[in-house]
């Protein structure tokens, strides 16, 4: 069965699964609410408190409905464990430059930040970038595509 994918409320869903999930959510939540109300009105002194407790049970019913839907319908997401490619990083610097203008100098940084950059192996990246600036005709990362980066940044 081919999936019919739609973007609803910020993420991708399958149309058929969405209809089923809404059906399950509605049935389970309202079902628990009405059963709880029916039972509690007999037990609890004040009718108002009985209804408040019934609402609490109903909300637990909402979560139960969600849990059932989560078990039945798998997420429509492709999750990959992703290690940022070192070759990308140079391109990120170009993006950063486009976004913020000049990137600044390492000599402006306090020692703690320099240490942090070294720990992350980013120091060389920025140092190379500064060397690249000293020789202005050499672009930092020639001929590279930045499309993969853009796909992540598009929501910002």
């Amino acid at each position: 069965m081919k999936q019919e994918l739609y973007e609803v409320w910020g993420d991708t869903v399958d149309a058929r699964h969405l209809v089923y999930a809404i059906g399950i959510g509605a049935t389970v939540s309202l079902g628990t609410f009405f059963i709880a109300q029916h039972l509690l009105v007999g037990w609890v002194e004040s009718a108002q408190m009985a209804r408040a407790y019934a609402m609490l049970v109903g909300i637990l019913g909402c979560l139960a409905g969600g849990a059932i839907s989560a078990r039945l319908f798998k997420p429509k997401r492709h999750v990959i464990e992703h290690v940022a490619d070192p070759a990308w990083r140079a391109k990120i610097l170009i993006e950063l430059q486009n976004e913020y203008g000049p990137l600044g100098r390492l000599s402006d940084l306090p020692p703690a930040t320099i240490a942090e950059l070294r720990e992350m192996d980013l120091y060389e990246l920025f140092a190379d970038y500064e060397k690249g600036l000293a020789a202005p005709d050499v672009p930092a990362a020639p001929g590279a595509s930045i499309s993969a980066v853009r796909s992540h940044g598009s929501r910002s």
Partner: protein
Amino acid sequence: MIAPLLDQILIALGMGILGAVIFAGIGLISGSDETTTLAPLTLLVVLLGVPAAGVLTFFLAGAVAKHMTHAVPTALLGIPGDTMATPLMREANFLRNLGVPHIALRKMISGAVIAALIAVPMAVLFALMLAPFGDMIKHAAPWVFLLAAIAIAWFSKGRLAAVLTLIPFVMVIVGLQSITGQYGVKLSVSYFLGIAIGPLIAALFSMLAPAERATMRREEVRTFSLSPDVKSWGGFFPNPLKVLDSKQSMWTAITAVVSSATFVFSPVAMTVIMGEVVGSRIKHVYHRLTTVITARNGVTESTYLAEALIPLIAFGLPLSPVAAGPAAPLFNAPPRFSVDTATGQVNNLHTLLNTWEFLGYGMLAVVVAILIAYPFTMNYAHRAASYVSRKISHEAVISTFVGLILVIGIWEGGLLGLAVIVTIGLLGGFLSRFLGFNIGVQFMGYYTAVLTVPALVALLHS
């Protein structure tokens, strides 16, 4: 004398822990908006009769915990954890693409810790400064709300369109109230929920219209790249001041103080502005990214705390975007809490707790939330993000919220309650999408309908 106080503190502690645990979990789910989650659950706590101190700690600890764990999807998956996380996306994405999302995460939540601790005493201080004007403001409440509604609308994305849209929006609410009134049904939560969940209702209706449906069609699933786990700190509870450098701690503290004072502005707007102010003062781009993201996430905490606490302490009236939205049940939750503008009579946390109690329980809530959410996020962020993105489908999230609409609507007003949620949700959802008439403005519209319109009618008839 001592025993009842101890009881109160224990209840406050217990509710704080409950709020922190629940909302630390909710914060991990991307797109779980603050208003749609905090408002109904806080309302429930109020209606179940939890003592005032417990209600306060539940809400505050929940908000603080959520704005820490929302850093997990934001930093590791590149999707905003909630509404307040959207201004953090640009910096988070750059740091993620540089291969250091764990740095983004650590800085964000460390900023949150510092700002939350600063915001509570600051909010109390500002509230004390405003309190002398409290009585005046209470008596002028209907007009203050009208002015606040216009101001908040003007500063929204819609500008003049949003200001003018207030008129038809208020008319619709007044109309709905008189219809339900004919059947003896008085609703309030249904309006809150309808406004908060409007974007979902609008999206579901759009799915049913063929033309809109076609634009929502997607050929393939979205790809999320989850960054690998890098643990580069020792122990279970890292020191936030060591995670940040001195400049970052300083900027976080300054922005926390400033954003605690500006409680009438939209928290998202404050987060954006404070970030820009800090960013323009730091030269090197890496330092700028990390400092801005730290300060911004700090502001998500401080604005929320101050916008809830200042109106509660000083006026007892929901006079800020947070107080009108996610924190609304702290002010108005009939039959237990109420605001009567005709007489200026207030019966809610404002009257039930004194200033010192607000300070004490506020700090308790913040400390509890930090003790739970901070080490959790530091140590389990990667596993949590992986679990949520692989196991919890968006269908399941929508299913839960549809259940919530049905239960709350039927509970409050039967089929009429449900009809009101759907009407307000659909209208509000589309107005927000097309005119920038956002949720904060809609809440102010609701208060204008409930508070200003009766005063206006009385004025015209006198």
